[in-house]
């Protein structure tokens, strides 16, 4: 059945090449928003979850959901009934594809604004397209700090940056040294050698050095590794007290398992928004994944306590992808909700007006930790917070800052043979 469908599609696309252009006809009460994420390629998992999150937000906005305590949920659509229609595109993790898809969405599909692109490397050229066209571009979770240091007028980002997270990690380690006598003096880094990993590691290194820690090991590896033996061996030989990690997906599990095999652990492991915060990976690693730490903007445990209104919305999302929100994907939902609120406040679809409101106002955002979103210069969300969590039995337990902490972290991490 599948093959017949495929064959039909093959025939169709060969036959109808070039006839596609300009097929979009907009019904009057619809607002098109472009959504560009990596739906194929190495980070497709994250990309597909991000799309599901934006779709969730669109459903909340478009339909009357008085039961949700989320802005715009009770009414149908925005501006008195305009529905949001998402136009989804795949950038495959490639900057050139992202750039051309952004152009296509604006010029051909006639989208009004865009949300994307997960990979910072793709967000850069794609948002440059929007900026040149004077269109609004929102990024949920692209984490490169450089994005909001470009002084763009129409670019906004909801999540905290690598820089913020790095400072938080260092602060936490200092606190541990003071209060739990952790005795952490040296730091090691392990990261995938990509735009994302390199950027995170550079920020981490800078923050650690500024605080007087010695950076002992700086281990970059090629993503999609067949093994991480020499990487972990290098870490083990240098034996830093704390390790900052930026490994995605499969590399993260390989890293954890290789450390177990080599029977080595640092006292503390702190991860950037990576494989650590993927609930599926945490579940699959089981007890091996415990006691690792990382920056987290959302987890069901945190949500239950500090973001009580997420759970209801999350059901829509979980129905799509089978996992709860994670820190990355939830930010994409925030992006659309904030954009919709700004349009509602502006009362019109005037780009300048909406952008001005985005730049100046503070928005209620029950889906953000802290509950507020306000964009500062360059478009960075100044209210973005992330907290340090530690995995305990597959659950992300907040440990820092103290106002969120429920229990003291297990520091140093329990050695492999004592688990």
């Amino acid at each position, binding site marked *: 059945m599948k093959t017949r469908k495929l064959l039909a599609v093959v025939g169709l696309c060969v036959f109808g090449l070039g006839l596609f252009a300009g097929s979009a006809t907009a019904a009057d009460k619809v607002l098109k928003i472009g959504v560009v994420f990596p739906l194929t390629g190495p980070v497709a998992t994250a990309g597909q979850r991000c799309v599901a999150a934006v779709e969730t937000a669109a459903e909340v906005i478009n339909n009357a959901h008085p039961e949700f305590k989320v802005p715009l949920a009770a009414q149908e659509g925005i501006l008195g009934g305009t529905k949001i229609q998402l136009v989804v595109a795949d950038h495959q993790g490639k900057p050139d594809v992202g750039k051309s898809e952004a152009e296509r969405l604006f010029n051909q599909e006639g989208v009004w604004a865009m949300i994307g692109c997960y990979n910072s490397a793709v967000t850069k050229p794609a948002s440059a397209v929007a900026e040149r066209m004077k269109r609004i571009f929102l990024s949920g979770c692209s984490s490169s700090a450089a994005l909001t240091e470009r002084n763009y007028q129409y670019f906004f980002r909801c999540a905290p940056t690598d820089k913020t997270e790095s400072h938080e990690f260092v602060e936490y380690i200092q606190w541990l040294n003071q209060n739990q006598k952790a005795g952490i003096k040296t730091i090691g880094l392990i990261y995938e050698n990509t735009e994302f990993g390199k950027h995170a590691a550079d920020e981490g290194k800078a923050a650690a050095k500024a605080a007087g820690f010695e950076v002992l090991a700086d281990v970059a590896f*090629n993503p999609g590794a067949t093994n991480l033996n020499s990487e972990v061996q290098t870490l083990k030989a240098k034996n830093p007290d704390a390790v900052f990690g930026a490994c995605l997906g499969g590399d993260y599990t390989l890293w954890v398992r290789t450390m177990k095999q080599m029977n080595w652990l640092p006292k503390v492991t702190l991860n950037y928004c990576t494989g650590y915060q993927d609930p599926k990976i945490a579940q699959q690693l089981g007890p091996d994944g415990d006691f690792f730490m990382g920056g987290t903007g959302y987890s069901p445990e945190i949500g239950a306590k500090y973001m009580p209104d997420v759970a209801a919305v999350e059901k829509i999302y979980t129905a799509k992808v089978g996992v709860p929100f994670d820190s990355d994907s939830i930010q994409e939902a925030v992006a659309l909700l904030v954009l919709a609120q700004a349009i509602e406040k502006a009362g019109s679809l005037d780009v300048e007006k909406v952008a001005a409101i985005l730049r100046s106002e503070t928005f209620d955002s029950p889906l953000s930790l802290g509950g507020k979103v306000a964009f500062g210069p360059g478009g960075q969300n100044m209210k973005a917070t992330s907290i340090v969590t530690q995995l305990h039995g597959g659950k992300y337990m907040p440990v820092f800052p103290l106002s969120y902490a429920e229990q003291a972290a297990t520091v140093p991490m329990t050695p492999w043979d004592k688990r």
Partner: protein
Amino acid sequence: MDIFAQVMIDGLLTGMLYALVAAGLSLIWGVMDVIHFAHGEFLMVAMYLSFWLGFVGGIDPVISWMASGVFLFILGALTYRLVISHCIGKSAMPPLLATFGLSLFLKNFCMNRFSPNFRILQDTLLGGKTIMLGSITIGLPQLVTGVFSVTMLFALYYLIKKTRLGWAIQATAMDREAAELMGIHTDRIYLLVFGLGGACVGIAGGLMTSYLAVHPEVGGLFGLIAFLIVALGGFGSVPGALAAALIIGMVEALAGFYIAPVFKYVAVFMLYLVVVMVRPKGLFGW
């Protein structure tokens, strides 16, 4: 010294795994002169099969490698019958591109069907177990895979060198037309070779699920390294593939530890260039 030994052993074990992945490619390449671009994706398919058998059926990779081997034999044979046999001929490019297309298809088909999620088998018989030799740690799954690999390669070598079938394969590799005149059904030999090539990578993939996560992109780097091993060892040479794989595994480990992890593949690729400058047909090529 301990660290050096540890690094060497890790490298050797990695090399043995590479050897198993590359053996099938070497066979296909040597006999048919076809660059099989979808080899890494065959590995991925085998890993998925083994994962699902383990996840749904509770069959451990220690047993399910047989199923992967058989399945990949069939997949290889089908690939030959449906694709390769139609475009094999004078030029090497059509089969190369056809298998490239096949690799795109397989990778994205698996992603579409199984989602791009990373999947790990939990609680496998071998998973996470280690053996200590003094201060040296050896991962049990890697060790078992290594032993398998060497056994398989010996079996393959025996098959090619000592059996009538093997002689037929050799004859076909040397001169297809002459072999045909000698009464060898070369088409069937090709079918069998492609199947065997698939079976080797199938077994490798089946075992690897004990310690590696499965996802649609897992085959990429393995495929690339397999190419390198085959070329380094000399096309069609099974001992060459084993030697090259062990060398590459060790160079990778040593460069990764003593130079820097980012340079480990740079070192491996440089090694290849240096070797073929000295021996333009690879280590065991003629």
